């Protein structure tokens, strides 16, 4: 009887303890990687390779996501606002939702799928084929060589991607606004920028930097700790994408709350 009641509690306790341990592990891993960023040598070549991978090769995916999101946003807000004759607010709603919220979140989610998975697979394969151990025997710290440049690259690349996403998203909204909803082009653009504040854009870019860090962190951590051959690497890849996606959405709330409070 007692066991029946206690069992779920024990399981819950184990789960909570496990989660705490993982969080602690990830935290220490992140701190170590950051400490390597502050101490030479820094692997510029690897940083640049990761940066191109994150920023340049994610561009098409992020661009398409942003354009379609801007277009949908214009249509939907028009439908909604037409019910109380507030169609003129469409442009500002589109730009504010994009810069504050949808740009950073959607771009980061797309990048999580591409980059989180790629980092986890690359580093995981290196782990299970002893290449990470080989680095150590070749006078190279694997955290400094593999993890630190990728973390920095993603943290810098994502705000840039989001800036592009903001611009293309607004363009998507403008396309629908002028060619379908009958707005005058100049008036649409004017009301886009009239109510836009620097804080809207900046808070979105800060979010993007945090999300970029999270995506790279989960990708590298899962890869670094993967075990057991191809299956282990596959598992690490899945975990990296799922965990970073959830963390992005959760942290998005936390960050919004912080910006909101100011």
């Amino acid at each position, binding site marked *: 009887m007692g066991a029946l009641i206690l069992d779920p509690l024990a399981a819950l306790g184990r789960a909570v303890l496990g989660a705490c341990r993982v969080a602690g592990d990830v935290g220490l891993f992140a701190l170590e990687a950051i400490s390597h960023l502050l101490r030479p040598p820094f692997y510029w070549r690897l940083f640049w390779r990761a940066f191109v991978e994150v920023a340049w090769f994610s561009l098409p995916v992020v661009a398409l996501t942003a354009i379609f999101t801007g277009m949908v946003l214009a249509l939907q807000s028009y439908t909604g606002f037409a019910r109380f004759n507030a169609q003129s607010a469409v442009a500002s709603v589109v730009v504010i939702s994009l810069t504050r919220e949808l740009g950073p979140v959607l771009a980061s989610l797309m990048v999580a799928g591409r980059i989180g998975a790629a980092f986890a697979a690359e580093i995981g394969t*290196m782990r299970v084929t002893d290449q990470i*151990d*080989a680095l150590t025997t070749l006078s190279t710290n694997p955290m400094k060589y593999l993890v630190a440049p990728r973390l920095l690259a993603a943290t810098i690349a994502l705000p840039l991607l989001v800036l592009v996403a903001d611009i293309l998203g607004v363009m998507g909204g403008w396309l629908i606004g002028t060619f379908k909803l009958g707005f005058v082009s100049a008036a649409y653009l004017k009301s886009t920028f009239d109510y836009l504040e620097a804080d809207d854009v900046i808070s979105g870019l800060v979010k993007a930097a945090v999300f970029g860090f999270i995506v790279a962190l989960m990708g590298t951590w899962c890869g670094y700790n993967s075990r057991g051959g191809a299956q282990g690497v596959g598992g690490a890849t899945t975990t990296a994408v799922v965990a970073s996606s959830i963390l992005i959405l959760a942290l998005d709330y936390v960050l919004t709350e912080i910006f909101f409070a100011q």
Partner: protein
Amino acid sequence: MNASDDRRAAARPGTGGPDRSGRAGVPKIRLRGVRKAFGAKQVLDGVDLDVEAGHSMVILGGSGSGKSVTIKCILGLIEPDAGSIEIDGQDVLRLPRREREAIGDRIGMLFQNGALFDSLPVWENVCFKLLAQGRITRGQARDRAAEALAQVGLAASVGDLYPAELSGGMQKRVALARAVAAQPDIIFFDEPTTGLDPIMGAVIDGLIVDCVKRLGATAVSITHDMASARRIGDMAAMIHKGRISWTGPAASLGHSGNAVVDQFANGEREGPIQMELRR
């Protein structure tokens, strides 16, 4: 192309490096009571091993007996649960990280599966350690790699290929070139000839003996192949049930008088070693 000519041409005199002899009376590598368990499985159960400076030690043992784990413990890749590991009389497990890394700078390792970096071309793999230590520039690295590849009988053009484009035997030779390129003091070879044809195996053995002689290094090799063990080793040690159960001259393998070693060396089914076919 004649590989041995290349090798002779490329072998430079005076590559001895600083103080290869070590301190008199202190073994180069000394393990005492090294224990390591993975979960409930006690893999190493008090390993004691001495390797004298300049010697070539061969470690024998059944599959899964903990040979690779032993080497990884010495390299600092696996932290043992107990025991001490001394290199040149210094207990590496208790050294600060920086000094431990300094010792690691003088150690080379050939991994069981090669562990070549598949994102880098062969020449960068071979010169990785020299580049990492800033001993050569990237400009010099290609020539240096060509030299090192020639020593293992590979053409300079191999340097521009990626590891995935090489055959297993070529990968082993590139890995060997990488392990010795920085002229280490101590070299570990984990099954250098497994999976190669007998002739290539003999060639690799020859290369290992060559490299070790040329560098004056201390070598520890793992092998399952008795012919190879006699070729590359002066001394041999048998690991059995998590301990070193026998140490002796490599030449005596097969007629050592130790039942475990002789059963293993002669590949007999009956004897003190009972293969655990099911666990």
